[in-house]
């Protein structure tokens, strides 16, 4: 599904930020990318999406999406890949929506442009999608503006937009970090349900090992732009081989419910 091999990312000034990251994601599989801020998690995701930050370029290695090397993708090929193949959600849903358009109109636009649906069909499909995101009164939500919705509702709208093109791969970069714990649990459940229903592959980026433990089959641990350890989630979290991973797990367990209760 996704194949990242020896990926190097550098600034135009020549400073290398990511030094040869490799991992493979099979159809329907979920991989968690963990590591501290600055470890290269988000840079790697943006490279996979074909939108590296300004001044950063892929300086080595390959990224394959469903067998295609994306290095030579034209803008048009990217337009065709984003939506049906790859989609993403990020930490701050409000900043990805136009504040002066209703959320339904923004979801409808994606459905019309990407899926070629007629206006009226698009509206019906938009309401249906909002309903399947667990949003109550989806017809009402459809006609609301982003400021009228809570953070958890906005993230559901963004997930609806992301899955509207029925992608094979969803990238979720700190998508639940800014949400209340109860809302985070609901959004994680939603992503888990979507994975099961749509055979969605998932690349989940989080600084919270517990979030990764909820959804991912495999974990890739990044540090300073390098993979220090990767493997099945239970193996990496229960019996970490690398000292850095051991420190991450120990730090996680120092405070919090996991230290108090063996659940």
């Amino acid at each position, binding site marked *: 599904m996704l194949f990242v091999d020896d990926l190097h990312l550098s600034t135009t000034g020549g400073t290398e930020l990511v030094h040869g990251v490799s991992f493979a994601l099979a159809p329907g599989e979920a991989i968690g990318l963990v590591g501290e801020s600055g470890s290269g998690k988000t840079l790697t995701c943006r490279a996979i999406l074909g939108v590296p930050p300004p001044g950063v370029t892929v300086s080595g290695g390959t990224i394959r999406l469903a067998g295609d090397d994306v290095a030579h993708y034209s803008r048009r090929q990217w337009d065709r890949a984003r939506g049906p193949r790859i989609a993403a959600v990020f930490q701050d849903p409000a900043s990805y929506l136009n504040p002066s358009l209703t959320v339904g109109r923004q979801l409808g636009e994606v459905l019309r442009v990407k899926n070629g649906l007629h206006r009226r069909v698009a509206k019906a499909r938009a309401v249906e999608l909002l309903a399947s995101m667990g949003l109550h009164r989806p017809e009402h939500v459809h006609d609301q503006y982003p400021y009228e919705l809570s953070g958890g509702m906005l993230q559901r709208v963004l997930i609806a937009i992301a899955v509207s093109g029925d992608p094979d791969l969803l990238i979720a970069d700190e998508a639940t*970090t800014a949400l209340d714990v109860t809302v985070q*649990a*609901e959004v994680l459940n939603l992503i888990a349900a979507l994975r099961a229903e749509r055979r969605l592959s998932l690349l989940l980026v989080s600084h919270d090992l517990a979030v990764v*433990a909820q959804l991912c089959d495999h974990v890739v641990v990044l540090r300073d732009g390098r993979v220090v350890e990767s493997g099945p989630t239970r193996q990496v979290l229960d019996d970490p081989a690398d000292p850095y991973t051991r420190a991450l797990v120990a730090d996680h367990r120092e405070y919090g419910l996991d230290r*108090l209760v063996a659940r």
Partner: protein
Amino acid sequence: MTAALEADGVEVRLGRRATTPILHGVDLTARAGEIVGLIGETGSGKTTLARAVVGLAPLHAGAVRVDGTPVSGLRGAELRRFRRGGRVQYVFQDPLRSLDPDVTVLDSVAEGLAVRGEGRAADRRARAVAALEQVGLDPALGDRLPGRLSGGQRQRVTIARALAVDPRVLLLDEPVSALDAANRNHVLRLLDRLRREREVAIVLITHDLGSLAGIADRIVVLYRGRVVEEGPAARVLLEPADPYTQRLIASVPSIDGPRPIYARSTR
């Protein structure tokens, strides 16, 4: 022994005619050296309660006392003197927005002392350096602007600024929810040391009940402007009595594996 902080029956209403109740008679106490966790979701009123305690939101009813002295009825010059005195310090949620981006870290930390008119500039700098050291920051960072620090460092700067004026009560709004585990541990260990060594009464405000385990002595659960549960931390976390508290605990993700899927709802 009187509590360092006592809030009784706090009622806050918003709106031009005070028609929208936000807090319906909430009690909150914190003794010297105690860490109290104040937990609630977005909109529960936890930040409003903290603002009411420091005099940033007007009380419709109820009273707030600091070391036994009423502070909630203060107006005008008295209120300014209380705020300037710095006995109660409030550390805001977003360190990037609560630090002036154009003022160096050291000047930000020293500013509270300047406002109180304490000491000469050189003494104030020395005390600000000491406060930075106390939160585990290299004083060499003092010459930097907040934008050049990491999130964890900025959070510690805001705590250093609050400590510089030697407060009796420290209220912190979501001090660790945006931090990774290593930085979270730094901040929590620091708070634990402060309550032991300086007997500061600490109120930790958060939406994440799990983050209070291992640090809070007592937990107060706020839901829609009312306290629904209150008690020793271990009791609240291990045997939550209120259904809302139970739901909060069930929502905390565990590193040990997936939680059962619970009812999806959007309130």
